[in-house]
């Protein structure tokens, strides 16, 4: 669900602003030549840049709640000021950070982590197992977005060992170890969020609320040192960030795809692959069912497998990427494309009208009255597709998808609704949603019958006992690697699954690239596949960033 919640209301105003800005900046193209030399123009020249060890970034919105990992800081990207027990490399493989080893008991309930002994916080105090224990206990109590409800207990038998006890096996518990930054017990207080002390690569120097955060390299950091001594994060709206890039104030700026066609002097556009996906969720029950909250659920058309598969196979995902995303994206076939737990076999050939017609015909859907829409038992293949009003990308995707399925004889009525309305209607109408996370728990939440009709989880009320059992096996696995085959089997095990070949409860459409304007010569290293949510993830590999003198 990305970072929508704190942006959506602004969307309309912002879209307006954005269009104005784009139009006017388009005009400015001619004026660029006469503009005074900006810092970005200088940055573009090799030689003068190799010594610059400071960067100005406009890559994300402000974490208003401050920099306290126990209340949510660092959930996207790295916590920067703190370090985590484990982390994921560019290939999303697990690597050690604070931990030297970790092990999981046979029953999956006891996790034991051994720590490095050479780690100091930025105030010079050593980091011990007590600090880890303190961090997890604080996070569990904080009533924040860190969900530790499955953790029964955490102990620190000695300085270097931490033992977690879970209430039930959860192989995805690893995600907490990779995202929760460790805070120092001795320096933790009410104002910690504003004055974080940690063992991460950087330390906070100054936070001008609503404006910027200035950070400097942490001298005590045990890992690879970054080439940049000082970073300034500006908290600008996408429009303002773009203006700042134009004005040469920033070295890297996150921008929306709408701005991607414009050239900015001295900067290059970098597109980063993501699993920030969009897809169509189908109600899986026949009409007349009820959701957990007692809302009407089910839909007689989308509950038919032939309809769902036909929609899936007829949509031309490449055309969506080109047409709607200006080419900055890639087709989506699952919720977790190219992540280790996705099943490559679930990919299929789309834009196939003949196959869609065949599926519909063999499913009993025929156009008897010749109106171009197929019927079955007197029910027309017609349903609503809702999207969050004001989100232009979702609107365009929904409209384009509706156009693409029409030739197969399926009529989709696209409607923009507010989030509140959508929430009530989602159980009985198809909805264009977006997900994408570095945590396979998301897959579980979307497809398991345990979470049927719970908030935005499994809104379609999908339920398949075989899929459930594969996913339970995945959760009970004692390591992420062991869990992978089970996740993949849940998607498609040869006979059933939540993929297109199986029950097709979703028609995934696209993964949206995250776009960054980067000053010429700045190398931002090999980026991970980003999760949903634009911005902060780009900072995950800061230690790899460097000035690249060979580029001009």
């Amino acid at each position, binding site marked *: 669900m990305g970072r929508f919640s704190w942006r959506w209301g602004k969307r309309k105003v912002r879209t307006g602003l954005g269009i104005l800005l784009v139009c006017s900046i388009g005009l400015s193209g001619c004026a660029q030549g006469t503009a005074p030399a900006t810092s970005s123009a200088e940055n573009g020249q090799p030689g003068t840049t190799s010594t610059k060890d400071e960067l100005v970034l406009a890559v994300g919105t402000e974490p208003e709640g401050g920099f306290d990992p126990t209340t949510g800081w660092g959930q996207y990207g790295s916590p920067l000021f703190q370090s985590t027990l484990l982390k994921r490399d560019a290939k999303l493989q697990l690597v050690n950070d604070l931990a030297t080893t970790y092990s999981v008991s046979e029953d999956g309930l006891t996790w034991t982590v051994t720590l490095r002994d050479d780690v100091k916080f930025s105030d010079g105090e050593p980091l011990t197992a007590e600090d880890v224990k303190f961090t997890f206990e604080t996070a569990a109590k904080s009533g924040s977005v860190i969900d530790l409800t499955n953790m029964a207990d955490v102990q620190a038998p000695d300085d270097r060992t931490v033992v977690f006890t879970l209430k039930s096996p959860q192989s995805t518990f690893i995600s907490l170890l990779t995202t929760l930054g460790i805070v120092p017990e001795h320096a933790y207080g009410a104002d910690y969020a504003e004055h974080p002390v940690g063992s991460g690569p950087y330390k906070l120097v100054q936070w*001008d609320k609503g404006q910027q955060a200035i950070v400097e390299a942490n001298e005590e950091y045990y890992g690879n040192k970054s080439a940049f001594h000082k970073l300034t994060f500006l908290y600008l709206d996408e429009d303002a960030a773009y203006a700042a890039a134009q004005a040469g104030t920033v070295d890297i700026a996150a921008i929306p795809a709408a701005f991607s066609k414009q050239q900015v002097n001295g900067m290059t556009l970098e597109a980063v692959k993501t699993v920030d996906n969009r897809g169509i969720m189908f109600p899986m029950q026949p009409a007349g069912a009820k959701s957990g909250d007692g809302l009407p659920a089910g839909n007689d058309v989308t509950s038919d497998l032939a309809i769902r598969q036909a929609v899936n196979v007829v949509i031309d995902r490449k055309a969506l990427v080109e047409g709607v995303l200006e080419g900055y994206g890639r087709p989506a076939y699952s919720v977790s494309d190219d992540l280790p737990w996705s099943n490559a076999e679930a990919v299929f050939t789309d834009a196939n009208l003949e196959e869609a017609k065949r599926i519909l015909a063999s499913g009993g859907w025929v156009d008897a009255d010749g109106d171009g829409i197929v019927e079955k038992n007197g029910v027309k293949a017609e349903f609503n597709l809702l999207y969050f009003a004001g989100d232009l990308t979702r609107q365009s995707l929904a409209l384009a998808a509706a156009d693409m399925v029409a030739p197969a004889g399926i009529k989709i009525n696209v409607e923009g609704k507010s989030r509140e309305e959508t929430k009530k209607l989602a159980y009985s109408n198809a909805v264009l949603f977006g997900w994408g996370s570095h945590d396979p728990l998301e897959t579980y939440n979307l497809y398991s019958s345990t979470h049927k009709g719970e908030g935005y989880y499994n809104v379609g009320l999908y339920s398949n006992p075989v899929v459930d059992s594969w996913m339970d096996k995945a959760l009970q696995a004692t390591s992420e690697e062991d869990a992978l085959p089970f996740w993949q089997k849940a998607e498609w095990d040869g006979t059933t699954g939540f993929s297109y070949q199986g029950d097709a409860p979703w028609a995934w459409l696209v993964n949206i690239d995250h776009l960054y304007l980067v000053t010429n010569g700045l190398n931002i290293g090999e980026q991970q596949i980003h999760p949903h949510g634009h911005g902060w993830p780009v900072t995950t590999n800061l230690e790899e960033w460097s000035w690249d003198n060979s580029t001009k």
Partner: protein
Amino acid sequence: MTGRNGWARFVGFKMLRLVSLLVGVSVLSFILMQFSPVDPIEAYIGGDMIRVSAEQRSLIEERWGLNESPTERLLTWGQALIQGDLGTSMIYRQPVADIIQERFMNSVALMAVAWLLSGIFGFALGVVAAMRRDSKLDRLICWYCYTLASTPVFWIALLLLMVFGVWLGWLPVGLGVPAGMSADQVTWGDRAIHMILPALTLSLTGVASIALHTRQKLTDVLESDYILFARARGEHGFQLFRRHGFRHVVLPAITLQFASFSELFGGAVLAEQVFSYPGLGQATVQAGLRGDAPLLLGLVMCSAIFVFTGNMVADILYRMIDPRMKEELMS
């Protein structure tokens, strides 16, 4: 004696009105928030929705008191308020009073500059237009005012941002201080430079109403019998205005200028948003969008007091400048 009593009564009455206004405004805002489609928990969880189980959700509800009934929540809030506690902001996780104080310092400087500029220029333009009525200059001023009066603040802000920030590169495109500069190095000059564009935006749009009203009022005055008489005695131009016009038009201008505090505040919300200027406006937008009830209520009260003060100052000045009003009050 009667004078002092009169003032005391006046102030007492105003205070009473302020208190009732605050109660009304906060209750109303609270009710509106109840009807707002924003689900505070969802807004709070934001990007991390997927990681949060139903169990954790109820933990969050409990932590922020969202599981209580609206009446209970309002009462709890009111009780704390009487003890001087504005509550804790959900999104900033800080006492609301601290946030408002911090933001107010930024906003107040911005609004004061804009307010002074628009008052002085608006008044001057209005006077010039009326004294040179139907001339080319008058028409130019009127055209300018009508154009500005019908222009949204954020559009002006964007225009200024593009011209001076991006094309010419003379002024910073946003923020209240230079990027990456540590606090002890930031000079008043830096702050002033960063304030130019937002303040200009606010004052440009504020000019229109005061100029047009002043022009109208002065036109009325200039058509009166005593001006005819003064003209007959040979007075003209600035002398005529200073002796017979100024007092008549400065009063409505001042009233209008103080009464415009609400527009000033509204304009600041938009201008601050465009320029990423860390003032009250920015905080208000955040609080509204994310259903942060304590912060929004605090800001609403703060802005109510602000606007109320503006109106009250206008009242008091009126009484001080116009002796007839004072007599009315004293009697």
